[in-house]
């Protein structure tokens, strides 16, 4: 058994290492949903590779558009893989901190509003 601090340290390190490996060695192929969209649009067959210039188009009229701060896990294009590494480290730590913060917040609210005893 390892203590909590070691669990957190090892867990974060493993997650960050997975993320960094993904930046450099992750597959550049579209995922299953993107591949399916390309098949539907006649740019790919189930077994063939997607063409390099493949692009997904949709004819949804009433759709929402959002521009995230780090689209496709990148900072600025000129930062290349280094930007990807920073983005994935930031995202991993953010997921970790939000989980901890939210559970603490729920516990604080729970202490202020204890559940009523069953009658």
């Amino acid at each position, binding site marked *: 058994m390892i203590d909590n601090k070691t669990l957190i340290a090892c867990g974060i390190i493993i997650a960050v290492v*997975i993320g960094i490996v993904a930046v450099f060695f992750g597959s550049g192929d579209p995922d299953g949903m993107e591949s399916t969209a390309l098949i539907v649009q006649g740019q790919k067959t189930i077994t063939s590779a997607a063409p390099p210039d493949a692009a997904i188009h949709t004819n949804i009229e009433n759709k929402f558009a959002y521009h995230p701060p780090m689209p496709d896990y990148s900072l600025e294009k000129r930062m290349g893989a280094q930007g990807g590494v920073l983005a994935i480290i930031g995202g991993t730590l953010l997921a970790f901190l939000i989980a901890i913060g939210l559970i603490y917040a729920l516990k604080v609210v729970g202490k202020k509003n204890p559940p009523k005893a069953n009658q």
Partner: protein
Amino acid sequence: MHIPDAFMPIWQGAIYWVIALVFVYISLRWAKNELNEEKLPLVAVLAAGIFALQFLKLPILMGTSGHLVGGALVAIILGSPFAAVFILTLVLIVQGIMFGDGGITTMGANIINMGVIGGFVGFYSFKGLKAATRSVPVSAFFAAWLACLLPALCAAVELWFAGTFPIEAGLLAMGIYYAIGGIIEGIVTVAAIYLIINVRPDMVDKNVLPEQTGAVA
């Protein structure tokens, strides 16, 4: 498996959001009542780990890549499908808002697919298979495989409603790709379960522990 905004009309995304929020609310109640400070490190580490694993795209041949979903892993380790809803929602919020991985209006559908369906299918199929086979690795592998495949098929149906995929081509292609990707999901899930059992058996659901370890003397 992350549905982007462009794949679905806003009004359909809103319907999935309403359904998802019901499960998110119940998962918050679960977290408030069931999570104690002892489990906090594991939950937070799982959130970070699922985020990183979903980013790791592995080739599954046929010009396509796959990544871990994680709903089954979280639900099995923490012993509740609502654990998967809780953690997958957090991960999807970070992915969608910060990185544009999965849409904002479609986030409800993504929470339903990966968190709700992935968590419930993963948890209950593990429970049933474990009772039948008494084998944790076999049960976890097939539960994770199903928890990858079924959400993908549900996403195909949702995208048929949205007018993005025809139903037959959508189900066929999504079924093939995620049935193969589910093998990776199964292997990673079993490996992660055993890694966590080895380092902190006190934090995992007792149903996951091998019977000789978990049995009451």
